[in-house]
């Protein structure tokens, strides 16, 4: 009798312990609230006073941790822009590192408010996985880096050669598809870790290195002799990367979408974080509307009317973000290319703010 009592008590204790753990599960993770029916993320973020943004955390130029422990990069600046628009404070962001296997479940489960994490816009993800893609903030494509003196001019020269692959969700598939099309037999050496992949390429394990072109350029600048390596004139895939929100929450999606557009528009207007105050009281009605001095563009979305002022003042326009993180002012010196404004021959184009 007593034996059973004790054992039952022990069992109960374990169950209670389990119960205890699950309670901490829901309370411990601050802001891991499940999506509340009928309530937009926008209100959730406002009430919380903090934006939870899913990032990768280990991509040079896009998201990494600097010496002071702060997240930096192009993807991170997009998070900051949204936080500045919604909360007025670019630092009111909590970053959550997500790897590619769990990013969508984390977004769908409400663990993060938005993803700003090198996510390629595809029809399947848009329609089947249940995501909404905000405008592309970086047009990328899978490329191939080789040594200049290797005598390789195109993918067809890879017969019997090795290619180092930084694994992604589609990187191996694109490479395999291209090689199959050409009928080339090659040896893929697939790494999970980017550092390992580039280190292996650097010391000659592979003749080629494939990844997104932005990454190839960024990493090339850190190889011992950057000029010894070239990118082949081949693009194996289109990789439009941009912020992502969850389906069926158009109020929140609109905010993320138009803040992103606003970054392009500010550059088009020539408004920067340095000169924005000179645009105050502008006679141009377009600029006045953009900065919230006329009309109700902001309040219609549920934001402050001068939300773009807060964004540009704190984070800068798209050109500034680009230059600071990957472009002319960074060590990568990436050309704008497709990422230039449409007026400069690029693809960055914002619909009218009216």
């Amino acid at each position, binding site marked *: *009798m007593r*034996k*059973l009592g004790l*054992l*039952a008590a022990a*069992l109960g204790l374990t169950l209670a312990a389990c119960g205890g753990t699950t309670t901490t599960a829901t309370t411990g993770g601050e802001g891991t609230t499940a999506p509340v029916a009928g309530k937009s993320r926008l209100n959730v973020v406002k009430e919380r006073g903090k934006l939870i943004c899913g990032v990768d955390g280990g991509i040079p130029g896009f998201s990494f941790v600097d010496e002071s422990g702060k997240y930096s990069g192009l993807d991170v600046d997009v998070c900051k822009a949204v936080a500045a628009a919604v909360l007025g404070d670019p630092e009111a962001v909590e970053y959550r590192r997500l790897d*590619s*296997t769990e990013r969508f479940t984390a977004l*769908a489960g409400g663990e993060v408010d938005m993803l700003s994490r090198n996510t390629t816009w595809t029809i399947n993800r848009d329609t*089947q996985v249940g995501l909404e893609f905000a405008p592309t903030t970086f047009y990328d494509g899978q490329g191939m880096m080789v040594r200049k003196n290797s005598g390789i001019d195109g993918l067809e020269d890879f017969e019997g050669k*090795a290619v*180092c692959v930084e*694994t992604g*969700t589609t990187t*191996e*598939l694109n*490479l*395999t*598809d291209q*090689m*199959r099309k050409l009928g080339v037999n*090659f*040896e*893929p*050496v*697939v*790494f*999970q*870790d980017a550092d*390992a*992949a580039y*280190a*292996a390429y650097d*010391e*000659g*394990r592979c003749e080629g290195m494939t990844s997104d072109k932005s990454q190839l350029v960024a990493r090339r600048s850190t190889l011992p002799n950057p000029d010894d390596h070239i990118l082949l004139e081949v693009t194996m895939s289109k990789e439009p990367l941009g912020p992502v929100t969850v389906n069926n929450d158009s109020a929140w999606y609109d905010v993320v979408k138009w803040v992103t557009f606003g970054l392009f528009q500010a550059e088009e207007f020539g408004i920067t974080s340095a000169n924005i105050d000179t645009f105050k009281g502008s006679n141009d009605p377009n600029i006045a509307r953009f900065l919230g001095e006329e009309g109700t563009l902001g309040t219609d979305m549920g934001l402050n009317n001068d939300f773009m002022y807060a964004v540009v003042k704190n984070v800068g326009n798209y050109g500034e973000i680009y230059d600071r993180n990957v472009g002319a002012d960074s060590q990568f010196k990436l050309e704008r290319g497709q990422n230039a404004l449409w007026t400069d021959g690029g693809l960055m184009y914002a619909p009218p703010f009216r």
Partner: protein
Amino acid sequence: MAHDSSDRGFDLKAMLRDERFWKIAFQVITLVVVILLLSFFLGNLNRNMIQQGKTFGFGFLRNPAGFSIGESAIKYRPNDPYWRALGVGLGNTLTLVTAGIALTTLVGVAAGIASFSKNWLLYKISRAYVGLVRNIPLLLQLFFWYFAIYGTLPKPENQIHFFDLAYFNNRGVYIPWPGTAVLALLGIAALGVGAIAAYYLWRWRTNIRIDRGTGGLPQTLALASLGLGLLLFLTLGMKWTIPHGVEGGGVTGGLRLSREYVAALSALVFYTSAFVAEIVRAGIQSVTKGQWEAARSLGLQPGLVMRLVVFPQAMRVIIPPMNSEYMNLTKNSSLAFAIAFPEIYSVATTTYNQTGRPVEVFLILMATYLILCLIITLVMNQLNRAVQFKER
């Protein structure tokens, strides 16, 4: 009536006091709790999957995989189905694990015995090796072998070779190998038969020696001729392919062990061997001092003391914990994906990435490793039975 009811009450009390009842009741309660928990979890799983628009099933295994794999023991093309891709991964895991177990046994036993060496330097190094390797995570050691050791080998253009028998460059290691897989298996089988025959010959010889007290020269001759025959068969009877360096870099012929494979193998072998060395050391120490002294007083050489008297006794202590070390090696082989070796965990995560089916992929992984571990345990249990004390 009244009597009847009180009787019933008495029954209940007696039942409550009866330990047998409680034994059964407790088991039933445990079973019910476990079933409830399981159904709670599985119900949630079902609801979650319905919400994500998926249905449980392994049908996806028949879809084409679409990705290529660097090395494979079986034929594989990118448009083969997923199950074949996973099979390639399993094959790679098996080659890694079998070679790993064989080499770990050799290196671990050697390192364990080295800690009893008369040579001060060897003794110190054996201890330092164990102290260093056991306390650094395997993941870091994998990187060390891949980059700091095999990464510093020369490029194929200036590869180094060992008497034209083995070639080394930063793509991998090239060794002689019987031409086909069938021949390789035949060779291994011949070696095995030879070893068994040699063992029985040796036992026979020892028995004769014990009975008559004289040496068994004819048996030694028999052993030698057996060995010679085996050697002749291995060299002439099989179509060895020997690697040849190609002008300007590269190697033809022989068996290519990719750099990923040798690095993973080295890291696993040296990591696990440190644990095996400690097991061997403890095993040898467990042999009582009297055994050493008795053997030496019979005039046996130090090497023979170890081989004939101490080690066979130490085996009894050594074999049981070796089982878990072999299992650890098998499970740790999953970390080889970090240095790009396409073993089954690596292929499985790619499969999961492409298909978005965590539950099915995890079940496949779990079943695979469980079966591998089960096989190891069965073999080790057989071995254990063979070396245990035969009480007479």
